[in-house]
């Protein structure tokens, strides 16, 4: 039993070494400064905890014995610690003997290495480190892995105890958003210095978590009066939020809610109707450019020439934001139908690549039809929305418009989901052929999905153009489609509140992670993969609406549940006195 435990430890240790090497190579120690070594040790402990706790049932046998667990932990720690110490030693020796590692490893600078030892970079360059300093690393990492193994035992001990069942626990999710909201307000007070220079970022994070926690609280609340009351509170809180935040926080949440609008539209196409669309950005672009043409015709060489020949002054917007709305929506609708028609017959991944192509075609046209779109130089000086002479172009009002837009679209999507059309979409997603045989007109249903989805994206695009006031083809790259699709899936396919949470996580989180600027994409990517592995159905999986109001919980389904037919059968014979009991 000892040997397999050591083997397992060695394997985990090798993986831990790989992770540590990665962290060193990307230059994390430099970033963390004096805290580098403790944090790496903490990461190691965390990793060993995670790696040792989830064993397959076979390995559980020795997992249950503390001694074996420790053997695994310590052998692994020793492996990882010695290997990484050796690697660092090699780097330090090379550096001190004048070899420049940087042409190969961009981050292998003396300061980076020095951070791991808590010494000055000069000591690294001069090769003044004692051999003991290297062993110090190995020792610390080994101890950390032991701590990780101990954590497993602590966790197991805690799990073994009966968890207290207090009904008051239910109030934690219900009251959390309110507490968070108060926290946001408190952070906004001028005298508060909490968080120092990062106060704005912490506040942004708190505001985002408030929105998300509110949605989760609504779901945790009992249906009926409690949920209604909470909904009202929630709406009031969210409506008040823009007035409490500063313009950075508002501008981030503004873009988040523009993506919510877009995500809700894509959710109809992908989540409801099951049509995988990788070129959804095309409709976003159509909306943005349509509004730009109407609002800033003077930016487009061709358009201004046409207007001049017609005798219309081309130096002012043709239509205001509000007047342009119906035209943008119509453009989106037409775009959706135009994409929809050729792809009616395509399924699955063929659909994905054709829509991707469509998105690229639209972007390339915007890039290359320079006469109309001004090419890569973009359309400039687009008018912000005005209402009664009041300029709504500032971040706060854009955020509010985004909120209103998202609310209207979410409301429409919810109504559609529970309508005849929504049922047809889901039926089509589940089984296209049966849906048709059941009476669903596939052509109409598919085109409606594309058209309605496109319309919502075009609305988002118009708001985006009004927010940016200058748009360029590069704003509408494939990555926008990928972002939108990711947020729908991260949130939970077909789930409307999921889109909000997905957008907060995917568009908001990277802004919070600004502090780690160059690491933020890597962090985001790692989170995305982890998220998919841990919770593939999304943050909030979609649920079907209950229409019969009598059941508290779904009956247990298993092999031995008799079907109605079986229960009815004796009744039919009408000679069985037990028949018909429920």
């Amino acid at each position, binding site marked *: 039993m000892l040997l397999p435990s050591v083997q397992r430890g060695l394997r985990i240790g090798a993986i831990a070494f790989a992770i540590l090497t990665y962290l060193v190579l990307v230059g994390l120690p430099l970033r963390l400064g004096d805290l580098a070594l403790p944090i790496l040790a903490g990461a190691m402990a965390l990793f060993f905890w995670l790696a040792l706790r989830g064993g397959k049932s076979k390995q559980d046998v020795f997992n249950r014995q503390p001694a074996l667990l420790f053997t695994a932990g310590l052998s692994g720690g020793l492996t990882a610690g010695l290997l990484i110490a050796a690697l660092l030693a090699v780097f330090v020796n090379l550096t001190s003997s004048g070899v420049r590692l940087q042409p190969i490893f961009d981050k292998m600078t003396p300061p980076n290495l020095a951070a791991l030892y808590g010494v000055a970079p000069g000591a690294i360059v001069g090769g003044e480190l004692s051999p003991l300093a290297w062993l110090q690393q190995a020792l610390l990492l080994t101890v950390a892995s032991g701590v990780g193994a101990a954590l497993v035992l602590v966790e197991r001990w805690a799990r073994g105890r009966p968890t207290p069942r207090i009904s008051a626990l239910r109030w934690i999710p219900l009251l959390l958003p309110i507490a968070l909201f108060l926290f946001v307000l408190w952070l906004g007070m001028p005298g508060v210095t909490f968080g120092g220079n990062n106060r704005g970022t912490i506040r942004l994070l708190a505001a985002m978590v408030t929105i998300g926690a509110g949605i989760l609280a609504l779901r945790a609340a009992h249906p009926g009066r409690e949920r209604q009351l909470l909904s009202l509170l929630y709406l009031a809180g969210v409506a008040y939020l823009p007035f409490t935040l500063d313009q950075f926080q508002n501008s981030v949440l503004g873009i988040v809610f523009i993506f919510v609008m877009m995500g809700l539209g894509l959710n109809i196409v992908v989540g409801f109707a099951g049509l995988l669309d990788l070129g959804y950005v095309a409709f976003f672009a159509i909306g943005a450019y349509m509004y730009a043409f109407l609002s800033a015709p003077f930016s487009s060489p061709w358009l201004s020439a046409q207007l001049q020949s017609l005798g219309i002054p081309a130096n002012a917007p043709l239509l205001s934001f509000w007047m342009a709305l119906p035209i943008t929506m119509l453009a989106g609708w037409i775009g959706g139908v135009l994409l929809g028609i050729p792809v009616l017959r395509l399924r699955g991944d063929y659909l994905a690549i054709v829509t991707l192509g469509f998105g690229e075609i639209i972007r390339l046209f915007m890039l290359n039809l320079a006469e109309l779109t001004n090419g890569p130089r973009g359309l400039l000086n687009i008018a912000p929305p005005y209402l009664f002479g009041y300029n709504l172009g500032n971040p706060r009002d854009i955020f509010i418009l985004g909120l209103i837009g998202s609310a209207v679209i979410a409301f429409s999507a919810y109504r559609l989901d529970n309508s*005849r059309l929504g049922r047809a979409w889901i039926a089509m997603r589940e089984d296209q052929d049966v849906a*048709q045989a059941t009476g669903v007109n596939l052509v109409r249903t598919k085109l409606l999905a594309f058209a309605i989805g496109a319309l919502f994206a075009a609305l988002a695009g118009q708001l985006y153009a009004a927010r940016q006031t200058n748009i360029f083809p590069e704003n509408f790259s494939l990555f926008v489609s990928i972002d939108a699709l990711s947020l729908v899936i991260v949130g939970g396919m077909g789930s409307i509140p999921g889109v909000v949470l997905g957008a907060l996580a995917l568009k908001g989180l990277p802004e919070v992670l600004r502090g780690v600027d160059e690491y933020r994409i890597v962090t985001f990517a790692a989170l995305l993969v982890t998220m998919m592995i841990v919770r593939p159905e999304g943050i909030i999986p979609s649920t079907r609406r209950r229409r019969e109001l009598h059941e508290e919980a779904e009956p247990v389904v298993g092999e031995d549940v008799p079907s109605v037919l079986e229960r009815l059968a004796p009744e039919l014979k009408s000679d069985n006195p037990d028949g018909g009991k429920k």
Partner: protein
Amino acid sequence: MALLEARGVTKVFGGLVAVSQVDLTIEERMIASLIGPNGAGKTTFFNCLTGLYKPEEGDILFDGRSIIGLRPDQITALGIARTYQNIRLFGSMTAIENILVGQHVRLRSTPLGAILQTPFTRREEQRAEKRARELLAFVGLTGKGDMLAKNLPYGDQRLLEVARALASDPKLLLLDEPAAGMNPRETEAMMHLIHRLRNELGITILLIEHDMKVVMSISDRVTVLDYGKKIAEGRPEEVRNDPRVIEAYLGPGILAETHP
């Protein structure tokens, strides 16, 4: 006038003639059965009737009008509904929603109406839900309306498929092996239900079935297919004794084993 009249229907896949020159006439309020060994072309014939396949030759008249070349949803709108051999419910929808999808062709509300919840839409949805509950009750699934279709027990799924088909107000209902995989008690209940469909709702029924007990006891008329050709037709007792049928099934011993 016959409700359904198929004349010389032929369907070819590559070199294989799946259905060959099949004639079939079904009168109103009749329970007709289509039997035959595996691969005899029964389900293919169903697919021709519902518009999934287009037959190479022949004509199919429903209510006196040709339905060749119509899309499946158009045929459903005319009044033909079906169930499937391997149950094909919309698994992630609830039972009630499955039935509501079945009513799709009978509903008229528009997307805009749904968003604005116009009085018309609201009334129509209420009616549709009421009707869905009635159908649920009719097949005996009261109280299971909010369960996801995929979570229902097997027998209930068969019933739900029937309810979904009924939702489109069919004149003709095509049942593809309704009793497949059921135990004797369930089978008996299903037979009872089929009778009720005809007697209480006045629906004409054409069914494919392997369970000879079912076929012989409920059918008004039985049609036998073999290698895509019609080899016998008549009242159950006539067909049972037809030598060609016995030959096709290689004796009554095989008869029982064809049950999947």
